[in-house]
C-alpha cells in the first residue's frame, strides 16, 4: 500500500501534475478531431517526451490515451461523428439524445461512466500489479518467446484486417527490427553499408511515419470540411433518474471493459461494442435503443475507458503491449532506458506507481474539466483539416530530427509515411508491423538464449510447463476471442443495419450531418473508418461497418 502512496507523492510535484493535465487535455482534443487519433498523436509526441523524466513521459502519454476515449464521445454525441473508433456505438443513442435536446445529460453520463470505469480499472490494476509481477519474475527466455508470440499472434488474429495480411505485416516488422548490428556477435545485418543504419531504424521515426505522416497523407486524399455544432449544450449534469437508469450499465461496462482490455487485441472498440450489445439484450424494451436510451451511452463509454486503463496491466506487469497504443508507450519507455518487464515494479517503482497514481488523478481531471470545456472542444472542429495537417507535418519533421539530430531520420519518416499511406490504400494495418518492430529484438534475444539453454532443441518452448502453458492459453484464447468477436460483430452489424433502416424511415438523410454527410460514393468505404460510420445510411452492408478500422484500436 505504501507503494501506491509513493506514486501519489510524485503527483504532489506540480510539474508531474501538469503533465497529467496536458496528457488528458491533448487526448480529449485529438479524440474530438476526426482524422487524428490517439495512436498518431502519441507517435507524433514521442520526441517531445525525450526531455522529460521517464515517469512523466509515460504519465502524459497514458493521459492522451484515456483522454482520447472521452474526447471521442463529444463528437459522437453532438455531431454523430465518432472522433475515434471506440465511440462509434455511442453515436446510436448519444446522437438520438442530442436530437431530443438531451445532449447535456448524454455527455454528462458518459463522463461519469468513463470516470467510474476508469477508476475501477485502476483499482483492479493496483491490486493485481504485485501478484502478476511476482508470477512473472519466474519467467525465463523460453517464456518470453512464448509470451511475445502470444502477443503478436493475438494482435494479428484479432486485428481488424485479414489475419494473413496482419501476419505478413508482423513479419515485415520483425524483419525490419533485425536491421542494424547483431546484438550478440556484433556483425551488421541488412545495413547495405549505410552508416545511419548501423544502429537500426529508429522506432520513433518508423512509428511517426506509419501513423503520423501516413494518416495525414491518407486524410489529404479525402477532402473534408469543418463542422459546426448547432445544438446548445445545457444541464450537463445528469439528473437522479438518469443516474438510476444507467447505474447497472456503468457497473457492467466497467467489468466487461476491464476483462476485454486485459486481453491482447482487446481494446476500446470491442469493449464498447460488447457493452452496447449486452445492454440492449438486457433491456426490458430493446426498441428504445437507437432512440436515445441513456444506457446505450453509459455502458459503452464506461467500457472503453475501463479497457484502455486495463490495457496497461500486461504492459506494466509482464512487459508486453496488448495493443498498438501500448506498443508506442512501450517504445517510449525503451527510449528512456526503462525496459518494461516483470521487474519493472522493482527496478522502476516511480514509473510503475507513478503511472497508476496518475490515472486516478487523470480520470478525476477528465470528469471535472471536460464538462465545462465541452464548448471549447467542439470549436476545434471548425479548424479545417488541411491546416491541422500542414502543422502536424511540420511538427513531425522537426520532432523526428530532434530525436538524434540526424537528417537521415527525416527521410525514414517520409519513407514510412509513404508506406503507411500505401498500406491504408491496400488494406494492410500498420499496427502489427509496429508492434512486431518493438517486440522483435526481445523475441530474437530470448529465442537465441532459449536455444542455448535447450542445446538447440526447439521443443523447449512446449515442454517447459510455464511456456507450454502460455502457448496452450494462446490457442484457447484465440479460439475463445475469435468466437466472441464473431458473435459480437454479427450482432453489431445487424444492429447497425436495423438502426440505419429505422433512421431511414424516421427522417430523410439530408437532415443530418451538415457538410460531412456528403461524401462521394467511391470514398465511402474508407471514410467509414471514422467519419461516416454513423452517418451513412447503408452502414450495415459494408464490410467495416460499425467496426471502423482505426489502427490505434485493434
Amino acid at each position: 500500500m505504501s507503494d501506491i502512496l509513493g506514486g501519489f507523492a510524485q503527483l504532489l510535484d506540480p510539474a508531474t501534475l501538469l503533465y497529467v493535465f496536458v496528457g488528458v487535455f491533448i487526448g480529449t482534443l485529438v479524440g474530438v478531431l476526426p482524422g487524428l487519433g490517439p495512436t498518431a498523436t502519441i507517435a507524433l509526441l514521442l520526441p517531445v517526451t525525450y526531455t522529460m523524466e521517464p515517469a512523466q513521459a509515460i504519465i502524459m502519454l497514458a493521459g492522451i490515451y484515456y483522454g482520447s476515449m472521452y474526447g471521442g464521445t463529444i463528437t459522437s454525441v453532438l455531431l454523430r461523428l465518432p472522433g475515434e473508433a471506440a465511440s462509434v456505438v455511442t453515436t446510436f443513442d448519444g446522437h438520438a439524445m442530442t436530437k431530443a435536446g438531451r445532449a447535456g445529460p448524454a455527455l454528462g453520463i458518459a463522463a461519469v461512466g468513463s470516470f467510474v470505469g476508469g477508476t475501477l480499472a485502476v483499482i483492479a490494476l493496483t491490486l493485481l500489479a504485485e501478484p502478476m509481477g511476482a508470477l512473472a519474475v519466474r519467467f525465463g527466455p523460453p517464456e518470453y518467446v512464448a509470451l511475445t508470440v502470444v502477443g503478436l499472434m493475438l494482435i494479428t488474429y484479432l486485428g481488424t484486417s485479414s489475419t494473413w495480411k496482419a501476419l505478413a505485416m508482423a513479419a515485415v516488422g520483425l524483419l525490419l527490427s533485425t536491421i542494424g548490428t547483431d546484438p550478440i556477435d556484433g556483425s551488421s545485418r541488412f545495413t547495405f553499408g549505410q552508416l545511419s543504419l548501423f544502429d537500426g531504424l529508429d522506432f520513433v521515426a518508423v512509428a511517426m511515419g506509419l501513423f503520423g505522416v501516413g494518416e495525414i497523407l491518407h486524410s489529404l486524399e479525402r477532402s473534408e470540411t469543418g463542422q459546426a455544432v448547432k445544438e446548445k449544450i445545457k444541464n450537463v449534469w445528469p439528473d437522479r433518474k438518469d443516474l438510476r437508469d444507467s447505474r447497472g450499465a456503468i457497473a457492467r461496462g466497467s467489468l466487461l471493459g476491464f476483462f476485454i482490455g486485459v486481453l491482447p487485441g482487446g481494446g476500446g472498440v470491442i469493449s464498447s461494442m460488447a457493452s452496447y450489445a449486452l445492454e440492449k439484450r438486457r433491456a426490458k424494451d430493446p426498441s428504445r435503443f437507437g432512440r436515445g436510451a441513456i444506457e446505450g451511452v453509459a455502458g459503452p463509454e464506461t467500457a472503453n475507458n475501463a479497457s484502455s486503463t486495463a490495457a496497461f496491466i500486461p504492459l506494466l506487469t509482464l512487459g508486453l503491449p496488448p495493443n498498438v497504443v501500448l506498443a508506442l508507450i512501450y517504445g517510449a519507455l525503451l527510449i528512456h532506458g526503462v525496459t518494461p518487464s516483470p521487474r519493472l515494479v522493482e527496478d522502476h517503482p516511480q514509473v510503475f506507481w507513478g503511472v497508476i497514481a496518475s490515472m486516478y488523478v487523470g480520470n478525476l481531471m477528465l470528469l471535472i474539466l471536460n464538462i465545462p470545456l465541452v464548448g471549447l472542444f467542439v470549436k476545434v472542429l471548425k479548424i479545417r483539416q488541411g491546416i491541422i495537417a500542414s502543422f502536424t507535418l511540420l511538427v513531425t519533421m522537426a520532432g523526428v530530427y530532434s530525436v538524434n539530430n540526424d537528417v537521415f531520420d527525416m527521410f525514414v519518416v517520409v519513407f514510412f509515411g509513404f508506406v503507411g499511406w500505401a498500406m491504408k490504400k491496400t488494406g494492410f494495418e500498420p499496427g502489427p508491423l509496429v508492434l512486431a518492430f518493438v517486440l522483435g529484438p526481445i523475441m530474437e534475444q530470448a529465442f537465441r538464449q532459449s536455444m542455448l539453454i535447450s542445446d538447440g532443441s526447439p521443443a523447449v518452448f512446449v515442454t517447459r510447463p510455464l511456456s507450454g502453458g502460455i502457448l496452450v492459453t494462446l490457442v484457447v484464447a484465440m479460439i475463445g476471442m475469435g468466437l466472441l468477436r464473431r458473435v459480437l460483430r454479427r450482432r453489431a452489424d445487424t444492429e447497425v443495419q436495423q438502426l440505419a433502416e429505422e433512421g431511414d424511415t424516421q427522417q430523410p438523410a439530408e437532415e443530418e450531418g451538415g457538410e460531412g454527410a456528403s461524401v462521394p460514393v467511391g470514398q465511402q468505404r474508407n471514410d467509414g473508418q471514422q467519419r461516416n460510420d454513423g452517418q451513412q445510411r447503408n452502414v450495415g452492408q459494408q464490410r467495416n461497418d460499425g467496426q471502423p478500422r482505426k489502427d490505434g484500436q485493434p
Partner: protein
Amino acid sequence: MTDPPKRKVHRLVPLALLALGVAGMAESSRLGLGAPVQPGPGMWPLLVAGLLCIAAAVLLFVDDRRDYEPWTRRSLVVLAGLLSLVVYIYLFAYLGFLLASALMLGTWLRLFAAEPWKRTVPLALVGSVALYLLFEVALKVPFPDGLFALAGGQ
C-alpha cells in the same frame, strides 16, 4: 461496392511482399545461420523472412480485392505531398529550419488546405516562428543553421 478498375493489380502487393521475403531469406543465409544450439546472426532473420514468404504466398490467393481503395486524382496530390516533404528535408538542411518551414507551411496551406493567401501568409510566418521558438529555443534542438546563421540569427 465499386470495383477497382483493373482486376489483377491487387496481386502486385502480395508479390512485392513475397519478393521482399525471398530477398530477406537470401540475405539472411549469407549472414551465417550458425547451429541450432548457437544460432548465428542470420538464423532469426531467416525464420522471420520465411514467415513473411508464407503469409505473402497465402495472400496471393486469399487477398480480398475489396480491401483495396481505388486510385483517384487525389492520390496524385498525396504523391505531390510526399515529394514536397523530400524537398523540405533538403531545404531544411541548407536553408535552416525557419526559412524552410515558412516556405513549406505556405506551400501546404495554399495547395493542400486551399487557404486564401491572406490567411496562408500570416499562418505560415507565425507558425514557423512559433515552432522555431518551441523546438530551438525552448527544447534546445540544434537545428542546422542554414542561411539564418548568415542573417545573424545564431
